């Protein structure tokens, strides 16, 4: 599904990712953990072609197609979806206008208003979100948790093949996290080929959405890969006690 080879990413000021590589196959769930500021969000935005970063070397391949030269919207239309760590609000643009435009980008004929409202209503109720979203501006006055729910609502409507969840668990209360994860799991059951990249600091979300691999990102590279137990180990001991040697060996 997604393959990143020797990716180096920098801003004008500094290098963030250095020779970063990862392979995610169809239907696999991967988690990436790492201290603040190591480049997890950078990775997620670079996969979607953000202009904030310069890719100095390396390739991002999605279903055997090189993504590097595609624009953000083209990558999204290939089936990549990012649930942002901090979703922004957009003044004056209603969810209705926004979502219908996004859905229509993926269709030959525009979605009918009735069909759209039906889909939106069922998705909002499954996420236990309040009604009346339609005519509100994107994330206008929304709390951190409400914004996260709205990200997953968009995911449900846009039906991606590859989902990146950047700290979905931050901002969501315990009950909401459970609801949101159940929605994601249902989607994964219905679309078993979908792959997921979960970025998180805590193992809780991984209890709901079980990853096959947990990777530790340090100094711009994956320094260790393990299973779910690696997440609990980090929760207990932090990053300083990680024995990176075998991680590096695995990578090489």
């Amino acid at each position, binding site marked *: 599904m997604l393959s990143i080879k020797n990716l180096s990413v920098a801003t004008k000021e500094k290098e963030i990712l250095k020779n970063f590589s990862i392979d995610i196959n169809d239907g696999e769930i991967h988690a990436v953990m790492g201290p603040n500021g190591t480049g997890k969000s950078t990775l997620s*935005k670079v996969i*979607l072609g*953000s*202009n*904030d970063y310069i890719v100095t070397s390396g390739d991002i391949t999605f279903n055997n197609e090189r993504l590097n030269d595609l*624009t*953000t*919207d083209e990558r*999204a*239309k290939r089936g990549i*979806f*990012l649930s*942002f760590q901090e*979703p*922004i609000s*957009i*003044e*004056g*643009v209603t969810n209705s*206008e*926004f979502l219908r*435009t*996004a859905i229509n*980008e*993926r269709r030959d004929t525009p979605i009918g208003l009735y069909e759209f409202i039906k889909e939106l209503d069922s998705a909002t109720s499954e996420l236990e979100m309040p009604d009346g979203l339609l005519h509100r*501006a994107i994330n206008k006055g929304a709390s951190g948790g409400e914004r996260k729910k709205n990200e997953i609502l*968009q995911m449900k409507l*846009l039906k991606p093949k590859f989902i990146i969840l950047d700290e979905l668990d931050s901002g969501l209360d315990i009950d909401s996290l459970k609801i949101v994860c159940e929605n994601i799991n249902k989607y994964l059951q219905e679309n078993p080929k979908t792959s997921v990249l979960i970025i998180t600091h805590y193992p809780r979300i991984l209890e709901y959405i079980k990853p096959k691999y947990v990777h530790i990102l340090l100094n711009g590279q994956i320094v260790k890969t393990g299973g779910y137990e690696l997440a609990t180990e980090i929760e207990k001991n932090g990053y300083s006690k990680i024995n990176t040697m075998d991680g590096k060996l695995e990578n090489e």
Partner: protein
Amino acid sequence: MEILGIDEEKVKAISNYKEEDDWVLKYRIDSYKKFCNIMMPSFGPYIDIDFDKIIYYKSNDYNKIENNWDNIDNNIACEFRNLGVVNSEKNLDGLGVQYESEVIYHNMIKELEEKKVIFTSIEDAMKKYPQLVKKYFATIVSNEENKFSALNGAVFSGGSFIYIPPNTKLDRPLHSYFRINSKSMGQFERTLIIVDDNSELHYVEGCTATNYSDSSLHAAVVEIYVGKNSKCRYSTVQNWAHNVYNLVTKRALVEENGIMEWIDGNIGSKVTMKYPSCILKGDNAQGTCITISVANNLQQQDTGARMIHLGKNTKSNIISKSIAKNGGNASYRGKVDIKDKALNSEAIVKCDTLILDELSKSDTYPTNICSNNTSNLEHEATVSKISPDKLFYLMSRGITKEKATELIVLGFIEKFREELPLEYAVELNQLLKNNIKIKKVIKLKIVIK
């Protein structure tokens, strides 16, 4: 009859042709003299008009205002059908249509006639209701105001006259539509609206013109009287062709407890200078102006609002949204003047500008005066670019850069769109979308060179 160029004889010829009363002719000649003596505006965009090359008046063959499209020349009726004007009438209480210099169509629902509402052309009103017209005509905008209000006084033709009697509220808008079709045509309509005490009106004005390379001129004057406890809303989106100088003077006089609202959109024209104003004369009078301006390649939108507070406890609110792109210039020019006797008054000015590229420009020229210390005047201004984060967010959902920009631009003027009747909001969206399309064509031309 067609009048090319201007002098006193030609002004008389227009008046003669219209068979006007003496007082109207005198007013025209007085205005013409003032036009000759007043200088061009000392501020704003450069105006390059050759006054000898403008057609000041052009009659149509039938000297009659029709109330049935079947009686109107088929070609012209067809044009208005294609513009959607004919069809829009079902959502209105009344429709008036002006083609070149003359009003050709006027119709109003029966109930309003029974209520003694008057909706007709200014010439017709001068003949049928001279006392009523004389009482208000040229009392709100004088012919000495500026060169173009003087010019309008000399050669005015067409425009709406509306009288809403006391204690009358209209459920749906009255609408006038103005079209320029000839080359070098000048349109000088004169609108006078009187909303008598305890009444309410929503008036909507629309306009278009065929595009020619030669400049044409639209110099209108709009006067509105808002009586005690009355409310008037005037909504317009001008979409003049890109060769039109749009130099318009619009003013409302608001009596005690009256409310005036200008909803003013500027998308077309080559140069627009327009500052709808409210004179808040009575105590507790309120004025609002929500204006948007979009300046594309080679366009200059010099727009804003003026609020003059005379009465006590008066309130005004100016919201101005400007968008500049492809080298266009969209500037805010406004004035709020709270006079010494206007105690306990309140004025809020909010100007936001969105600049879409490095080539484009925007300036703000606010004049804010508060002459007593019980009143409050707030002014807030922002200039922003399309935020890359917002673009990235929308594009990350698969929306192209063009569409994402369009959504953000439409979002920026949401406050304005909200205030428009639904059909016009849809039309406005379409206009703005077309505007973004134009951009691509222009780029292409540059590449070919």
